[in-house]
């Protein structure tokens, strides 16, 4: 029933945004294939971005309410389209693969060349797209809650938000290095401006500048890596690269190239040592933007990173690449990231900064999932693919929990900042006195971030750890070490989460405001209280998101026609190799 509703809504919405099925098919016919229909959600957002700008310049229509409404539809409609479209058998995210084969001989890829593809619409991409869209929707609520953002520039903010979402959606389904690069740049440029949105705010400008500098450097490094990979493999399609690299005998150049590309992803995921921008940008940015970046941007980064690892490891080729030990590599940066994030978070006097470092630590935990994907890739074959899928779905599942608790925590920060105008730790002192429910809500969310029962964060962590142990059992003892490090880190993180809890419940507040009740708006309750209630409810209904997350599977192309290295390229490869090792 839910399914039908989603489908009806999809059809209706397609009508609303001016893309009725017929003209749609006609458009697709002009381009030459039907796969364009899979791109419709992204097109809706493109249209909506323009629509928001139009509404913003029209004197008649221009009002915060209208703008929000357009953005709401623009985010909800694509989500429903994705949910509805693949709803043939179940509500969530079934891979488009099977359906597509009926329409086109391109196996569901929008492509430029027959053997190299741009975008892929599999369960994995769909999951992350819906995730990003949902984060966007929650961010709208946060913007509504935020009293600090100037209302007259709301149109610009929403346009940028939609643009960022579009970039993330493209990133989630990109399977081509060029597409990946473009999507990363697209979402980054939008987020740079979002961070600096309060123009006169020094912290915001500083954060945005750091964010941009880091972004520029890491995309530079990344595109150098991409050029090396292109030089060696002669293609930009990551699946093809993975298969062709197996035939290139130059471990150093390949390792260099892959690490350089990883730098680009690492910057988006804010993993150490590419995390330095995060605390400043998070602290300076308006809180809704901070929350959005810390959840959606990170998720998009993980989506593409996992897809990349999966393509670059053995299972697509059947023979192991002797180039880079992804499992150890990912495990080590994961361990470093969580340790750096947690240890630094301890000293932060500002709650937003503390949550920024905590989000870095969470990126470290999520690396467990990525390492499992890498392990699955190295094992190869059916068993390897299964383990890789477990890793991917565990990451997806944890991200759902993380989204819920992180947005909730930032909503509480926003509520307190609305009242006190501050977001340092001391602003939370004595919160229990001023608004007991809000303090309890925040405590629940922090406990969920800490990952202990009875919260959803615990189930997420359990899933992640279980995936890690599965890889450990499959012959990767380093995963056990990583899990123990993660456990120790969780203990460390308990210190700073409890510092805030201690402030709220134990430390008496400042005398001037100690007994004044803190008023929370309805939106505030919806955002903060809603996430806390969901955090508890989803713990009791522990299996609720496991099914959908399991559907977040990568679609692999095991036997590609272009897998063999083109003969005439061999000479190139030799030359490039010389360049690569010099570089």
């Amino acid at each position, binding site marked *: 029933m839910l399914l039908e509703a989603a489908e009806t809504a999809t059809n209706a919405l397609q009508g609303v945004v001016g893309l009725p099925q017929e003209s749609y098919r006609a458009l697709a016919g002009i381009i030459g294939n039907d796969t364009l229909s899979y791109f419709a959600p992204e097109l809706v957002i493109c249209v909506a971005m323009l629509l928001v700008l139009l509404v913003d310049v029209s004197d008649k229509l221009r009002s915060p309410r209208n703008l929000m409404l357009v953005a709401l539809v623009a985010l909800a409609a694509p989500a429903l389209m994705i949910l509805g479209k693949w709803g043939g058998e179940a509500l969530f995210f079934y891979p488009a693969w099977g359906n597509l084969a009926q329409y086109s001989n391109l196996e569901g890829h929008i492509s430029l060349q027959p053997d190299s593809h741009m975008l892929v619409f599999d369960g994995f991409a769909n999951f992350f797209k819906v995730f990003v869209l949902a984060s966007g929707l929650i961010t709208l609520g946060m913007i509504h809650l935020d009293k600090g953002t100037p209302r007259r520039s709301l149109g610009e903010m929403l346009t940028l938000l939609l643009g960022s979402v579009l970039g993330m959606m493209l990133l989630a389904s990109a399977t081509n290095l060029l597409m990946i690069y473009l999507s990363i740049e697209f979402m980054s440029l939008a987020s740079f401006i979002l961070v600096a949105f309060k123009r006169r705010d020094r912290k915001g400008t500083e954060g945005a500048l750091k964010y941009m500098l880091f972004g520029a450097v890491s995309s530079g490094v990344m595109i150098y890596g991409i050029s090396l990979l292109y030089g060696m493999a002669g293609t930009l399609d990551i699946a093809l690269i993975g298969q062709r690299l197996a035939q290139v005998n130059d471990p150093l150049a390949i390792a260099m190239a892959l690490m350089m590309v990883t730098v680009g992803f690492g910057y988006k995921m804010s993993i150490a040592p590419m995390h330095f921008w995060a605390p400043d940008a998070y602290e300076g940015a308006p809180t809704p933007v901070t929350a959005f970046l810390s959840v959606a941007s990170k998720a998009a980064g993980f989506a593409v990173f996992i897809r990349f690892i999966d393509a670059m490891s053995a299972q697509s080729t059947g023979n192991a690449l002797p180039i880079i030990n992804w499992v150890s590599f990912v495990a080590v940066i994961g361990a470093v990231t969580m340790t750096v994030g947690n240890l630094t978070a301890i000293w932060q006097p500002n709650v937003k900064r503390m949550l920024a470092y905590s989000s870095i630590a969470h990126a470290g935990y999520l690396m467990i999932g990525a390492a499992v994907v890498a392990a699955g890739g190295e094992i190869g074959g059916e068993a390897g693919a299964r383990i890789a899928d477990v890793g991917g779905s565990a990451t997806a599942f944890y991200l759902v929990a993380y989204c819920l608790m992180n947005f909730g925590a930032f909503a509480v920060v926003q509520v307190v900042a609305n009242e006190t105008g501050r977001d340092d730790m001391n602003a939370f002192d004595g919160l229990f006195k001023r608004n007991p429910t809000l303090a309890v809500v925040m405590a629940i969310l922090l406990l969920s971030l800490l990952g*202990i029962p009875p919260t959803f964060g615990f189930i997420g962590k*359990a899933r992640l750890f279980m995936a890690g142990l599965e890889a450990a*059992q499959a012959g990767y003892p380093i995963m056990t070490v990583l899990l123990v490090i993660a456990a120790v880190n*969780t*203990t460390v993180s308990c210190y700073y989460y409890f510092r805030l809890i*201690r402030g709220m419940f134990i430390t008496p507040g400042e005398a001037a405001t100690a007994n004044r009740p803190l008023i929370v708006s309805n939106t505030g309750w919806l955002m903060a209280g809603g996430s806390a209630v969901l955090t508890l409810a989803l713990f009791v209904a522990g299996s609720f998101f*496991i099914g959908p997350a*399991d559907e977040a599977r990568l679609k692999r192309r095991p036997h590609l026609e272009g897998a063999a290295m083109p003969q005439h390229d061999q000479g190139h490869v030799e030359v490039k190799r010389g360049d690569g090792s010099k570089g």
Partner: protein
Amino acid sequence: MLLTFTIFTPLVFALILLFVRDIKQVKMITLTGTLVTFMLSLGLILPVGHPGSRTSLAQECNENGKIGTLLQQLKTDPETGFSTYTQGLERDVKIMKSVEQSDFAHQLRFVEFVPWIPSFNVNYFLAVDGLAITMILLTTFLCLVCLGAAWNMDKSLDHNTHQPKYKGMRAFFILYLVLEAGLIGVFSSMDYFLFYVFWEVVLLPMYFLVGVWGGPRRIYAAIKFFIYTLAGSLLMFIALLYYYLATDKGQGGTFNVVALTELLPKHFSTATTAGMLCFVGLYVAFAVKVPVWPFHTWLPDAHVEAPTPISMLLAGILLKMGGYGLLRFSYGFMPQQAYDLATYIAILGAINIVYGAYCALGQTDFKRVVAYSSVSHMGYLLLGFAAMTKIALDGAVLQMINHGISSPMMFAVVGIIYDRAHHRDLNRFGGMAVQMPKYAGMALVAFFASLGLPGLNGFISEMLVFFGAFNTRVGEAANGDWWLVFTSVRFWTVVSTVGIVLTAAYHLWGYQRVFYGKMKDPHYKEFKDLSGTEWATLIPLAFFCVLLGILPGIALKYVDEPMRVIQNNMIRHVPEYARLVEEERAEKERQARGGAIAVDTNLTPVYVEGK
């Protein structure tokens, strides 16, 4: 449903408290809540009530029983779609049904079984055996009694400012009830995942109870307690997930404790790194709670800073969670590893006994003395576990119960004097026996019960542990190098006896400094003797100190069967241990042929005539 009711009654009363403001009503509601919970928990031992509730798990597992029916429903329901789950559950039920091998399933009562997270085979599975029953009864009893110590907390004034010392007592009682619910949940879960959930749920209220209503260093003590326990339990969590994957043979793993007790000993029958790591992970988690040296340092801080009723609960029940976990999980799941590491466990037990007592001797803070006495007393647990004889195991569990009664009584005694004197410095007391004779009398019971005077409860359990541990041959080396004596559990038992002397010393010296001699402060002349609530707190505890000293059988009755099951499990899965037991039996028979008085494993003297 009895167990569910017992767990959730405190929570329901906690919810009611959210809507009550008047502190008198709050206290009455809390009292009602704990009283109702206590009554419900008595249902676990009283031969009244619904006859069906006394069926064992084995009966529940029959096709017509609750779990069998559930299985049928899931099988015939195509809409559920959890095919792997049904397979996993079917496997679990099969294991639980094979009771001729596992008498563990046979003794479990009051079974409740509801699927929770089907894709991981996690179930809401509650059941109790004798061990759990004693622990639940101890919990509900102490939660009722400790309320006496909390009763007048809202009226007590700060010594310096003369303002009310404890604020927000409504929240205190809410957390108190949540804590009780968590504790009962810990002891009644037969699903390991569920156990872990309750285990962590206990932490949170405890953090706030110590952190908000504690002494001057309360924040440090609370976070230290939290971090120590969390670190341990996360290691346990990794081990727990490993168990799940280890039992996964294509139909999902299991968290079902009965199934795990059947499957894991086989999985861990050889000495592997994974097995050792799992044992150590679990051990650390439980050792922090027990607490075992060197993980014990949170205990003196937490005990000293916590308000009196919370110290009583900490010492009375929270420490027992560790002992319970060691027996149920470490020894149940990994008997081979437990046997291999018996020497180390015995050494740690000896360290706990001697070191704890030695530290207690050096303290000047009255409450610290009691805190370290807990460390010392908990050492007997480890010693008994390491010895692995039936008597020692019985003694160790009885020690858990006895310490759960005498140690809260000691804390109550400390709390009473602290309420009056506003300090706990042993060197500044004196002469209280004259000023407060009734109090001195009750304190005497507590001190001597804790010291282990014959006739009071502590003596019986310590005697049983020593008796069992002297007779064990676990850890003895086959060849005859002289230094190999250090590997035998028996040697470390001998070392532990030093602790008895030290224990007597710090108890008697402490008693002497508080109650005898000259009053060091004229101010003490104003002290009143015991009040009504103080009597209400001390009398039930003193009653059980005496009762269990005279009739330990009333507790041992429940402990006997679970310990036999644990020993049988050990015999079944550890060939070396089975050989030891067999040799011991043969030795007895040989002695008996000579017409000696033999003592069988059940502590019954048997006289067999010589041939």
